[in-house]
């Protein structure tokens, strides 16, 4: 048997508790959402900055090789990774032919790394999407000596594509992507299309 008023008290406590729980949950949700937006905004700022700073131009081309001049307007130690895909983004052309991308100005050999395809994002019409392939993809990391001898000294370095290796992969065109690390994920900040004539 409840005392007189006890039922009302319990009801009020339950309601107050429910309101507190719902209120705190909504606040947490709002703060989490805002935090997520802020985080994405900061990444977007970083990527926009990297995109605006990267200058690519064709420096040399013959029947077998295409060399892309790569220049960073403001020097920084940002490390780039390069990925080479067919233009339909369905085939990783570095899987079978890791020598398709050459950095001739490097004194050290470039490091080829396997990274999860889901952690690599490419740009399509201004928006970032994960690569439409499963498993792992190969990326070539620009050696540190290139960063120190070229990027930090505001000199353009060369990235060359072996066109004969691409043609042996039976594709007529390829897309070279310049990627930067954001935490453990890779985001595209520049691209160059390679056409086989």
């Amino acid at each position, binding site marked *: 048997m409840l005392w007189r008023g006890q039922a009302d008290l319990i009801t009020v406590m339950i309601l107050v508790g429910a309101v507190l729980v719902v209120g705190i949950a909504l606040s947490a949700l709002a703060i989490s959402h805002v935090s997520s*937006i802020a985080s994405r905004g900061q990444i977007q700022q970083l990527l926009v900055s990297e995109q605006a700073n990267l*200058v690519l131009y064709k420096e040399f081309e013959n029947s077998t090789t295409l060399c892309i001049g790569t220049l960073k307007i403001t020097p920084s130690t940002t490390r780039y990774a390069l990925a080479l895909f067919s233009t339909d983004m369905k085939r990783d052309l570095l899987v079978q032919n890791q020598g398709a991308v050459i950095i001739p100005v490097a004194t050290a050999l470039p490091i080829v790394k396997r990274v999860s395809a889901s952690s690599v994002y490419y740009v399509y019409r201004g928006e970032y999407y994960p690569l439409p392939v499963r498993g792992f993809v190969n990326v070539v990391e620009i050696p540190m000596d290139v960063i120190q001898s070229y990027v930090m000294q505001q000199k*353009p370095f060369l990235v060359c594509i072996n066109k004969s290796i691409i043609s042996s992969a039976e594709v007529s065109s390829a897309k070279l992507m310049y990627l930067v690390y954001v935490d453990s994920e890779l985001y595209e900040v520049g691209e160059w299309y390679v056409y086989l004539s």
Partner: protein
Amino acid sequence: MCIYLRKGQAEVVGGIIAISVLLFSIATLYFLMTSTQSSLSTEFARRASFESEKNAEKIAVSYDLNTDSCIVSNAGAISITIVRAWQGNEYFNFNEPLPLPPGQALPPWPFSETPDIIVTARGNIFTVKAECEKIKNAVTNMQQIIIGSGIASTLVTSETLLNNMRISKGMQQGYLYARVLQKDYAVLYYNGSKYLCSSPSDKKVYSSAKLPQDFTWDLDANNINEIIISTYSTCLDSAKVSTLEINEYGGYGSKFTGSVMFMFKNLVLIPQGGADTITVYFKVVLNIEGGGMPQDVVVSPTIVLSCGSQSLSSPATVTTSGSGSGTIVITGFAIFPVKAFSLPLQPDSIYNLTLDLKFVVGPSIDLKKVRLEYLAIVGAYINDPWK
């Protein structure tokens, strides 16, 4: 002691908390947007500035006939740094980049041959060897027929045209004359001892004995006399030669607006298998009154190459400068892209060259004199009047 909340106080406290959360969220988003916008503007400005500097890089390639070498100089307004050169399929990285301040030329290359291309620190690529070969061919060809030596031999001054190559040789096919507002006039040139006259039908050499002492043959005082427009009757009698003004040739009222042409008959010989482009350079000296500035005189020059019924024209790019004392100097050039546009210029044919100057002058300006000081033609021969 018990504290009792008054009626509605809980709602107020709850509301304050909710509004705080809302304000925090909005403020965060606002600052994020502001920061993003600022960052975008900064990056855009930096990239635009870089692209502007990149576009301002200009390299001039020339050929030194005496040393048989190519000269690369900075023809732009900003300093250039050369970081790499290519020869065929090989590249050469400069460990110490070569700085090239505006107006200066590179020291000799550290390798035996002229490179095919050079790369600057801003990512510009300039073709050197092919350009130099073109100039070398043109200069070598010109050298065969023009008096003088070196690159300057491509320059045909009024003295060369009138004194050495035209009038003094008495060539009937090589005359030149002027046309002002569609009416033909003679031209005069003073070589220091005699004055020479060329009209649409005749050329003669006269003694300077009766020339007035105050006659100004060199408006810009650079020791090269200019070609002066005159009437044919004045031309015939040295006693009548005077400092004539452009209005006397048919200007409207006190202001001149219209066309002044210098017409060279049979001047340009198109070579067999010639250069990809023919470029004609010129310098015109004007005299104005009324206290105007160079920008008050708008001139649109066109170079015309004509032969029989065929006529090709090219508008010229000009630079105008003035001393403020009424003398205005206009230098310019017009390009005929023979190969790129497959221009129908017949090899081994001789073409007339016309420099057509269309003037529009400001309301306070009186255009008094229009004189020609030099022509230079690169990519074609000057027709040899002695043949």
